[in-house]
């Protein structure tokens, strides 16, 4: 299934770093996120975008993961040549990720 079936997401920017949250609609599905949406997978998934590292933070209380992508915004919002300066569209993109049902 697609991540979109069990989670929602929002992306934000700070300098040249993009942040992407992945939040389970139903908190009982959170372990699935924790198991399958790893920092390594996210880095590979965004290989066309991210030049630096990807870090993952866990928020089990909220059923959410938070990703920080270094070097993902074309040198930073204020000087990027990209159409999507802020990486606003990254949230919609990550929800396309395929993950196992268990």
């Amino acid at each position, binding site marked *: 299934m697609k991540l979109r079936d069990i989670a929602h997401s929002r992306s934000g920017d700070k300098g040249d770093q993009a942040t992407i949250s992945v*939040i389970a609609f139903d908190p009982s599905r959170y372990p699935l996120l924790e198991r399958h949406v790893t920092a390594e997978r996210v880095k590979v998934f965004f*290989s066309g975008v991210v030049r630096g590292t990807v870090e993952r933070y866990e928020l089990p209380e909220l059923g959410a993961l938070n990703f920080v992508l270094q070097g993902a915004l074309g040198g930073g919002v204020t000087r990027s040549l990209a159409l999507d300066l802020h990486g606003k569209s990254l949230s919609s993109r990550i929800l396309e990720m395929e993950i196992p049902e268990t």
Partner: protein
Amino acid sequence: MSAAGREETREHDTPFYTVCPMSSIRIGSGAGYSGDRIEPAVELAGTGDIAYLVFECLAERTIALAQLARRKDPKTGYDPMLKARMETCLPVCRDKGIRIITNMGAAHPEAAAEATRDIAQRLGMGDLSIAAVLGDDVFDLVQKGTYPLEETGDRSTTLPGRMVSANAYLGAGGIVEALEAGADVVITGRVADSALFTAPAIYEFGWSMDDWDMMGQAVVMGHLLECAGQVTGGYFADPGYKDVPDLARLGFPLAEVEADGSFTVTKPPGSGGMVTLATCKEQLLYELFDPSSYVTPDVVADFTGVRMEKTGKNRVRVTGGRGRARTGSLKVSIGYLDGFIGEGQISYGGTGAAARGRLALDIVAERLRLAGVECREIRRELIGLNSLVGEGVLQSEQEPPEVRVRFAGRVWTMEEALRIGDEVERLYTNGPAGGAGAWKAAREIIAVASTFIPCSLVRHHIRYYGAD
């Protein structure tokens, strides 16, 4: 099927003014950025039963742009929307006894305060007390010294272009002081966004600013409110998965804050949008790095223990924010000139649109080479195919029915930047078949870098206006 959908209930809006205990204070968020809608702020002031209306309007580089404007005209340098916002909102705020807090002072809070005083006088409110919180401008200090840049680790003296501004993120202290002095309107330059919201709560409840857990919880409140409509259903809707009612009349949020720091996020009755666990969770994590260490001037906030509970329709109660002692240094945003960006776009449709688009990109690159335009960096995109997701991510081999070519380049001179757009436009008569709707632009780059300086080097001070 989404939990966000399940969260929607059929209850009627609770008439919240009857359930709001006297021990709480209601703080409203009237703007999430400078160009934001104004009507929801008026609605919030009119029917939100709020005591404070906050306008957060200062993006990362806005202050550098404002500094340049101020150098051209010493009466400017504040937010270009300040007059429109004040003219629209002052009367209703006056009627309801609502105090206004805003960072619309940008690079010139004093000029912003004077402009607000003039508007107040014209509207027959000559006794309005206005405070300008100053001290964030550390341009002289930073220019004289050499500081390590957060982004690259290089020294501030190695920035590629001329430095145009340096502003420290101040905490809530100056705003609290202005409120204690009785200001009806508090105008700041650069302060931490969340401080605009934590200050009125600190003032009202007399919280100690060394109570780290309390400050941490207050930052959670500020963080949830500072982007206005982004917590009430804006930047959220995804039809079929996450539906949001009436986005054209999106209501802006308010927090009902209690003396123990816990608070409830809600919005004016009858307004569009929604406040749900899902909208609040998304905004809590927005632009957040390590959730256990959200560094602000006043406290290092820890969001990992935050709990959210739905307590009614469009009501989410938030507890559990914590904090640790402030770091003792302040983040400084340095604005600097970084050359120019030139850009051109043109569309192709029908079978072979993508191939013609790629040909167009190749032609522009070759033309710039022949013209001796030296691009420090270029970006070639086919909008509709790869402009958002980057090369190598797209799986589909299917040809799109239309593409929009976008060629952007970073150069050192305005002349070269203009040439980029010109070469795209000239594809009309010199490029592939059927080029349509060409568009071009060139702009100077005001870039931002960050550093940190000790708190002890920065002192806020306040100037009062009005009450004539």
